[in-house]
C-alpha cells in the first residue's frame, strides 16, 4: 500500500493571544508556535500504521514555505519515507480549493493506493482540500473517518456523523480519506527518529514544476478571498470574578450556594 499524506503547518492558537495585522486580512504570526495541523497528525499516524501492516511507502506532502519543513521533518521522523514541499510566492492567499489544485498537480503522476488528509485545518477550517483533490484525481473519497479496514481493492471506513453516531461505508480503492481526531493515538518520536529525519532530503517543487500559472493559484485561483478579519462581536460577556485564587474560589462557592446547589 502506497500512501500519500497531505499535511499543513499551522500556528497553535488555542492559548495564544491573537492580533489582527495591519493588512486586516491576516493575524500577526510573530511569536506564535507552529506545528503539524492536529487532524493531519492523526492522518500521518494512520498512514504509518497502514505501511507497518501492509508494507509499501508513505509520502508526506505540504504546500508551504521553508518554515513548513519542520512539519515535514516530523513526518519523516514518525515513519514517512519521503517528503515533498510545494512552494511559490504566488501561492499566497490560496484557499482550500487553490491548495487542492496545487496538490493535485504535484501528486497526479505518483503511484498511490490511498491518500489521507486531515478533515480540516485548525487555522482556516475550510474542510475542502481532501474531497476537492479526490474529485480532481477522479477517485472516490470519504470524510471524517474514525476507522479504516483495508480489504482487496476496497476499504471499509467508519464516518463520524453527529451525536456519537457513525456510518460504515465501503469505498473502492484507490481512494482519499479525510481523518477525524481520535482515530488512533499518534506516537511520540524517538530521538533516533529525529536524528535520522534531519539527514533526509526534502524535495521542493515550484509553480513551474507542477505546470500551473499564477492565475491558477493564490487569490486569483481561489473560490473565496478574505476581505477582512475581525474579533467576533460578543453577544454576552461573562461577569469576571477577580481576586486571589482563594477569594475567587470563595465567591464562586457563594454563587453556587445561592443557586441552591450546595
Amino acid at each position, binding site marked *: 500500500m502506497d500512501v500519500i499524506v497531505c499535511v499543513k503547518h499551522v500556528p497553535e*492558537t488555542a*492559548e495564544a493571544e491573537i492580533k*489582527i495585522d495591519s493588512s486586516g486580512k491576516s*493575524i500577526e504570526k510573530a511569536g506564535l508556535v507552529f506545528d503539524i495541523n492536529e487532524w493531519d497528525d492523526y492522518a500521518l499516524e494512520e498512514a504509518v500504521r497502514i505501511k507497518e501492516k501492509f508494507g509499501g511507502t508513505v509520502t508526506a506532502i505540504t504546500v508551504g514555505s521553508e518554515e513548513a519543513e519542520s512539519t515535514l521533518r516530523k513526518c519523516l521522523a514518525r515513519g514517512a519515507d519521503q517528503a515533498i514541499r510545494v512552494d511559490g510566492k504566488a501561492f499566497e492567499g490560496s484557499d482550500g*480549493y487553490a491548495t487542492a489544485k496545487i496538490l493535485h498537480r504535484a501528486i497526479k503522476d505518483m503511484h498511490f493506493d490511498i491518500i489521507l488528509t486531515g*478533515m480540516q485545518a485548525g487555522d482556516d*477550517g475550510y*474542510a*475542502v482540500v*481532501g*474531497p*476537492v483533490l479526490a*474529485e480532481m484525481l477522479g477517485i*472516490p*473519497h470519504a*470524510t*471524517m473517518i474514525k476507522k479504516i479496514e483495508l480489504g482487496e481493492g476496497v476499504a*471499509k471506513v*467508519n464516518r*463520524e*456523523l453527529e*451525536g*456519537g*453516531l*457513525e*456510518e*460504515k*461505508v*465501503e*469505498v*473502492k480503492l484507490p481512494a482519499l480519506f479525510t481523518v477525524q*481526531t*481520535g482515530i488512533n*493515538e499518534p506516537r511520540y518520536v524517538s530521538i533516533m527518529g529525529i536524528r535520522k529525519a534531519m539527514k533526509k532530503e526534502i524535495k521542493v517543487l515550484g509553480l513551474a514544476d507542477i505546470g500551473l500559472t499564477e492565475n491558477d493559484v493564490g487569490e486569483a485561483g*481561489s*473560490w*473565496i*478571498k*478574505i*476581505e477582512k*478579519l*475581525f*474579533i*467576533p462581536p*460578543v453577544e*454576552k*460577556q*461573562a461577569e*469576571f*470574578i477577580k481576586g486571589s*485564587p*482563594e477569594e*475567587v*474560589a470563595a465567591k*464562586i*462557592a457563594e*454563587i*453556587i450556594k445561592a443557586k441552591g*446547589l*450546595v
Partner: protein
Amino acid sequence: MREIFVLTEHRRGQIRDVTFEMLTKGRELAEETNTELTAVLLGKDVKEYAKTLSEYANRVLVVEDTKLENFNSEAYQKVLANLINERKPLLTMMGHTSYGVELAPSLATALNLPLATDCIDLTFENETFFVTRQMYGGKVNVRAVVRKSESYIATVRPATFQPQKPESMNGEITEIASPLTEEITEKRFIEYVLPPPGGVDITAADVLVGIGRGIKDEKNLPMMEELAKALGGVLACSRPIIDKGWLPSDRQVGTSGKTVKPKLYIAVGISGAFQHVLGMKNSDLIIAINKDPNAPIFSFADYGVVDDLFKIVPQLKEKIYELKGQKA
C-alpha cells in the same frame, strides 16, 4: 424566476434541524435577491417530509430512488449536479455537517462553481456574494468575498440561524424522475454504528464539571474528579480528552457528543469552540475557568475566572466543603 436551493438533510426517519435553519435564512436571502426558495429533497419514501417542507418554501423538488435511501455522496452528487445544471439556482445551501462536508466540495469542483464552507452569515450585495466564517477555533471572524459566478454553493454552520415557520407558505411539491439510471459503484452505505450502550449518562446530571485540553495531563484527572465529587456532580469533557483516551466517549459534550442542560456547568480549561458550546450553552448556570481572557467560552458563560485552573480548582473544592460544613 431564479431559485435558492436548500438541500434537505434527513437521517433515520427525521428531517434534521439544520434544514429548517437554512430554510429560514434562505427565505430572507430569497426576498433580498428576488428569487424563490426551493427545498430539495432526495430519498426513498420521503413524500411525508415534502409536506412539512412545503410549509417553509415556495417549492419542494422531490427525487425518490432506492439508491437514495441512505445518504451517499456519490449518488447525491449526481442528482444535485443534474438539478443545478438544469435549473441554475443562484445559490445552493447545505449544512456544514457530516453530510455537507462529504458532498459540497466535490460537487462544487465537478460543476466548477465556487463554494464557501461553514458560513455563519451570507449576503448578496450589488450582485456580489459575501460570507462570514470563523478561523482559529472561533477566535477570529472573517468576511470573505466569493468568486463571481452564475451559481454558488455554500455550507452553513448548524445552530446559527433561528428556525422560524412562515405565516402562510404552501409551496408546490414537484416530483422529478431520478436520473440515477446506472449503479452507484464507488461508495456503498453498509450500516449505522451506534455508540456503545451503558456508561454514565451526563445528560441526567444536575452538576457537570467539564474539563478540556487545559488540564494538560491525565495525571490531573483526580483533581478534577474531586471537584466534581465535592459538588455532587459528574465529570464531562471536550473532545480532546476523549481523543486522548483519558475519559470514555460517553462523557463528551458537543456536536459529536452529547447535548447537556445541567443546573451548573463549570468549564475548566475549555476554549469554547462552537462544536463544544452547542452541547452546553443552554445550561442554567455556566462558570468558566480559563487563563486566556479572550477564550470564546467567556461569551457563553455567566461568570468567568481568568486564572490558572490548577490554582483555582483545589481552592474551590475546599470552599465547597467548607460551605457544606464538611472536611474534604
